[in-house]
């Protein structure tokens, strides 16, 4: 098992090289929200969220069900318009429609839905999403290997997969896309022990190669081991000032941290 994780080809995980003009921000502020209100079918799911995310952070979003965590992730992915307040993601304005389109390509969202076609095989799904995202097909096989999707699973229809295996497939798509910001909604859900460790490894590796991660999880123990900062939400906005566990640098230079704790 150990050798399997170490056999991962690290450069695949990092951040895709982007054009300079996509990154308008000069400082390391990746996401900045000020009093952001976002509506989900006319319900104020975010009710004035103020929040900052810096380059290289791994932020754990925490809060009760219906606190607005998933909506926050959708908003940061550029999928939702901002109703009032302001927000910048990678120097792009969330209130502007063309900017939101640019944000979408720079972020990766693992939502609670699988974003997979049930009727297609695992490989066909990943291949389709790679083509759609204009990602070179060469990365597919190594990534599938890394996520434990090669072999028997490779040509299995997604409808025949277990929920954990679907989660891995969705993750594989995000790994292939190499986004600058990883927005993961309950990445551990449905995953077995090895899968959960895999998420930790992927996240820390991605961060060490220039990505920034925000994720939600109800597994507080595991989440706090991974995160550099915890942000608590309630009623659609920040609960209290975030608690900083330790400096960012020491974390991101240790990609296989979760291996040690396990």
């Amino acid at each position: 098992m150990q050798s399997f994780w170490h056999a991962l080809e690290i450069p695949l995980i990092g951040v895709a090289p982007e054009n300079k003009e996509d990154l308008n921000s000069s400082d390391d502020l990746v996401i900045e929200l000020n009093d952001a209100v976002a509506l989900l079918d006319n319900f104020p799911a975010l009710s004035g969220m103020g929040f900052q995310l810096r380059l290289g952070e791994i932020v754990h979003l925490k809060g009760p069900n219906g606190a607005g965590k998933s909506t926050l992730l959708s908003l940061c992915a550029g999928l939702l318009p901002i109703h009032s307040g302001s927000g910048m993601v990678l120097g792009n304005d969330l209130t502007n429609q063309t900017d939101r389109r640019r944000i979408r390509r720079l972020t990766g969202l693992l939502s609670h839905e699988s974003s997979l076609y049930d009727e297609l095989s695992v490989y066909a799904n990943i291949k389709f999403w790679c083509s759609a995202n204009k990602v070179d097909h060469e990365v597919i096989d190594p990534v599938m290997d890394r996520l434990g999707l090669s072999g028997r699973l490779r040509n299995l229809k997604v409808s025949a997969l277990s929920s954990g295996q679907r989660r891995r497939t969705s993750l594989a798509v995000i790994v292939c896309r190499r986004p600058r910001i990883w927005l993961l909604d309950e990445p551990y859900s449905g995953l077995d022990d090895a899968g959960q460790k895999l998420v930790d490894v992927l996240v820390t590796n991605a961060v060490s190669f220039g990505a920034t991660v925000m994720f939600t999880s109800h597994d507080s123990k595991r989440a706090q081991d991974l995160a550099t900062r915890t942000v608590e939400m309630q009623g659609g906005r920040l609960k209290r000032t975030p608690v900083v566990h330790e400096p960012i640098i020491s974390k991101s230079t240790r990609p296989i941290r979760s291996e040690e704790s396990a």
Partner: protein
Amino acid sequence: MIRDALLIARKDLRIELSSKIIFGQVLPFSLLVLILFGLAISSDFVVAGSENRTVLEQVAPGLFWLSIVFSSLFAITRSFSLEDKNGNLDALRMAGIDPASIFLGKALAITILMAFLEIVVGALAAVIYRSSILDIEILAATLAAATFCISMAGTLYAGVTAGSKSKDTLLPLLLLPTMAPVLLIATRSTEAALFVEDQTGWGWTILLTVLAFLYTGMGMLTFGSLMEES
């Protein structure tokens, strides 16, 4: 843009190949509709002024297109439920795919599937309604142009209703009135191909082609505003 559209169309066709919803369920439905029409409409009475055609033979082109229009509703609903089910539309938007490409891709896949369906249904209709085809070229041109019309307009309206909980009932309400001219023209054109020796059918076919381009243009222009959930 064309590349993305083809990608989406190919994906939809591959899904149909593996799930066979259109050919396993929608196609039998349209055949059933043909048979039910045959039961409801007399095949004993001869229409005055026609060359000894019974009522059923006379109205066969209209019945055929009616069954195709109804089946197209299912095909379109099915095509969009694929994207709706697991939030794949959002994922397509995350990939930065142009809405016009999504429109073209979905419509293209529906066109191809409907074309196959029409050939099978048409063959059966010709047999059970005892139609003899006088002009196969006009018939083929009509099939092609009408199929484009139906799937382009259908995809456009599916975009209008996408994401709503009432879309299954709303789509027919919006789409069927729009289908009225297509149904009318396609029926005239098919009648011309079946009953008349001269080339009058081409006028109708050209009209259908113009409509097909019109709906394609409308869809490509407006799909951005329809799909942008924001």
